[in-house]
């Protein structure tokens, strides 16, 4: 067996093991009769998580050996690595605080992230000269670890909010909490739709004319939004329902819009099905399961993850980034959108820490901030790469 398929197999194995670990973590919540006892189920749950992590580390290094460079150079590789670091960050915080609930929520988020990553082209891609440096893995891995630890703060904050927010009536808070639930559904929707249509080998090609030049655009999802004045050239495929609005820029913009609309629609469907089955808000349905959780402890984890993650993020996302930028592009700072959003993330968590330490923003306020912080990280990871083109665009 060659290294590349071994590597792919290991990633798949890790994914399945994480799934099993989630089930074990769910079981620890169910049978929690004795507080603070490290039962067999707890050992199984964390042990399985570590096993999955080892499998994913195996994926990482076999892929590195196969390609000759650290596999953090495109969207699939980076996002997968981010998922792996999220698992590591959870393991670290688990051994500090021993909260099983954290695993029950952090692992599904990691699974979703890895699933999301797999929707991008997975073939091994060559490095352009500016990426050929040891700083590639030094900078990227530290950023991913820092962001992952900060993401654990989001997970803890989300659990805190689901547990604490009064669900007896509809308020702005319950609505925003449902927005988080819906965002998760939409991500899942994206993964499901992409998987379904790629297993069917769906491909529809549109041709259109820009500046008297004939261009083509391939769709892997049925085209709801086609390119302006586009013509379907593949037979037996659905023609575009609408034309993408002209103010969208970039050659691939119509396809990105199409994918976004599909994800949002599939997410809405998933969300509505869940609501129909549960007959209440999703967060309200989860709330009773969290009764035994200690809100003060969750609040502490939410903050502690920021306290641990902030220096790591600063080191990787700003300082290592600046050193490398100085070497590769002869300036340590260039106001590239990715750099600016790293700075915004840094500003944001600086605000988080100041408000908490100096102005006493604990509990709910702090948890909401953790959610916003994660939204900023995701924005930088996805929107900046896909929409705001710059030096860091991978896909």
């Amino acid at each position, binding site marked *: 067996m060659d290294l590349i398929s071994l590597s792919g197999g290991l990633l798949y194995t890790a994914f399945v093991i994480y799934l099993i670990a989630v089930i074990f973590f769910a079981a620890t919540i169910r049978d929690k009769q004795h507080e603070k006892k490290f039962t067999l189920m707890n050992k199984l749950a964390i042990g399985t998580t570590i096993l999955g992590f080892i499998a994913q580390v195996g994926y990482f290094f076999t892929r590195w050996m196969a390609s000759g460079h650290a596999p953090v150079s495109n969207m699939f590789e980076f996002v997968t690595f981010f998922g792996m670091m999220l698992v590591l960050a959870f393991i670290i915080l688990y051994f500090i605080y021993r909260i099983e609930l954290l695993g029950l929520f952090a692992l599904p988020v990691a699974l979703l992230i890895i699933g999301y990553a797999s929707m991008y082209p997975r073939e091994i891609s060559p490095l352009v000269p*500016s990426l050929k440096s040891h700083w590639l893995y030094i900078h990227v891995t530290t950023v991913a670890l820092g962001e992952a630890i900060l993401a654990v703060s989001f997970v803890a904050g989300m659990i805190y909010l689901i547990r604490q927010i009064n669900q007896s009536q509809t308020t702005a808070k319950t609505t925003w909490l449902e927005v988080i639930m819906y965002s998760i559904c939409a991500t899942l929707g994206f993964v499901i739709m992409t998987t379904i249509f790629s297993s069917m080998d769906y491909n529809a090609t549109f041709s259109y004319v820009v500046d008297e030049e004939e261009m083509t655009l391939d769709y892997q999802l049925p085209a709801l939004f086609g390119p302006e004045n586009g013509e379907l050239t593949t037979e037996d495929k659905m023609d575009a329902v609408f034309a993408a609005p002209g103010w969208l820029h970039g050659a691939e913009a119509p396809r990105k819009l199409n994918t976004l609309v599909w994800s949002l629609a599939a997410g809405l469907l998933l969300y509505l099905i869940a609501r129909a089955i549960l007959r209440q808000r999703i967060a309200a349905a989860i709330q009773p399961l969290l009764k035994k959780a200690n809100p003060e402890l969750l609040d*502490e984890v939410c903050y502690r993850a920021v*306290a641990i993650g902030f220096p790591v993020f600063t080191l990787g996302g700003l300082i290592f980034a600046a050193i490398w930028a100085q070497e590769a592009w002869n300036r340590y700072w260039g106001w590239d959108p990715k750099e600016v959003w790293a700075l915004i993330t840094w500003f944001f968590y600086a605000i988080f820490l100041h408000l908490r330490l100096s102005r006493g923003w604990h509990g709910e306020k702090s948890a909401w901030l953790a959610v916003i912080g994660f939204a900023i990280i995701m924005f930088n990871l996805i929107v900046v790469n896909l929409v705001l*083109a710059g030096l860091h665009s991978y896909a």
Partner: protein
Amino acid sequence: MNIMKCSTCGHQNKEGTTICEKCGKPLDNDQQGTLLNMRYDGSAIRSKTKNRSIVDKIWNFFSSVKIGVTLITIALVASALGTIYPQEMYIPQNVDPALHYRDQYGILGQIYYQLGFHNLYNSWWYMVLIALIGISIFIVSIDRGVPLYKALKNQAIKRHPNFLKRQKLFGEYTDYNTDDKTQFINNLKKHRYKISEEDGHILAEKGRFSRWGPYVNHLGLIIFLVGTLFRFIPFMYVDDFVWVREGETAVIPSTNQQYYIKNEEFIFETYGNDDEDAIFEEALQNTSGPVPKHFETNAVIYEDVSRDVIGSDPELKEVKSGEIIVNEPLKINGLALYQDSYQLNEFQTMSFKLHEVDDEEEEAIVEFTVDLTDPESEYVFDNGYRIELNRYYPEYELNNGEPRSVSNYPRNPGFVFFVYGPDIEEREASFLAIGQNIPSGDNQYKLSLTDFGVRDVSGLKIRKDLTLPIIGLGAFIFMVGVIQGMYWQHRRIWIHQAADSMYIACHTNKNWYGLTREFEKMIDGTSFTMVRDQEKKNDS
């Protein structure tokens, strides 16, 4: 200044002090039942006590955390605005920004441009904003850091009972013996607490240095920000660019003609030509066009060693040679040369021949070669023919019917030749460019392109940045401070020995969970029970 006299020990405290510096008695009229505010250990903060002169008012404004957070929030939003559309430095260089933003992004783009957001990060107001944050950091650090330092340095060991009773973690013990106390203190020592004793009262403390973390990281930030200002001092910072053609020697700009660089060879490789690239095959098929794999300039650096005589030719002495690769700049005398860009296959020469229009064989009457970077104005031949290069456009384009050159680089050369000869009455003109050969009229002779030579051009950035050590130092100090403040915590445990009972109180500046866990280990082997968390209401 007003003095606050402690009602218990008589110590005279500065106005604004909330906990007596000497005996630790709360000075806030003993609001029993509420927890003590332990921020800055109850010491007087300048901004909280003085508000009279204009200096006080400015000081108080900047020392407010609320203002600091507001400033950072504004900077955050402003920074985000700047990423909506590309900044001016990332749009093509040969276009007018005013038109570019309007044409590319419509009315919103035009508004963006007119608000100056296309150059947001270099705008005066963005810099002012960052400067205000810097001032705020500086003032707040002095305002809080100095009193906190003094308070912790001079802290009393024996504290007033009310001080302990109003801590978050507090326990009162009556039923214990001396062994318990000894064991407890031993446990504290085992956990690396520093123990100080005064009349049986104990202060156990560890990690005080972590309290300085915020002030250290703020210092780092201030050094960093000051470092970026040094860029505006001319000799500290050089940012220049030079194109060097293969085989050519060029002056390195910003060196006062002291240094020269020769481009011996420019090497450019793409993926897919090597066996080892086989594994990228699939990815390469999915990309349009070749993917660059490696490029470098083999360069020689010379220094002009001639005496400074105006008009004298430079006397070049080789000082260094080597490759300039992306990620591996060549350094000379504090100056770094970076591989920045390239222009492949730029025309170097073009060769022409003159023949009769009717001649199907196109037999050459004369032949000549034009050096495109240094063309001659006239080519004279022994057989009586003479060709004048009347006009030369290195990068030719037609602009409203008028020929012109976009740049001085021979990327698309265009020529107007005048041909003179024994059998030509006056002269014959013709225009030549790639794919074009236009005679001026009924010409007898025709010029044809026979050959051309190309070479690569390497684009090099010339950088000197003496601010880097300062900026690096600032970043380093920031990291030290942030780790010091975030990864350690300042924990204190007080034991107050009363006549018939003993009080224990604990305080930490953060991470209370860790402190309670540690306290559990501390009472191991003693009869002490766990301290109560007084913040938890109705805790059973």
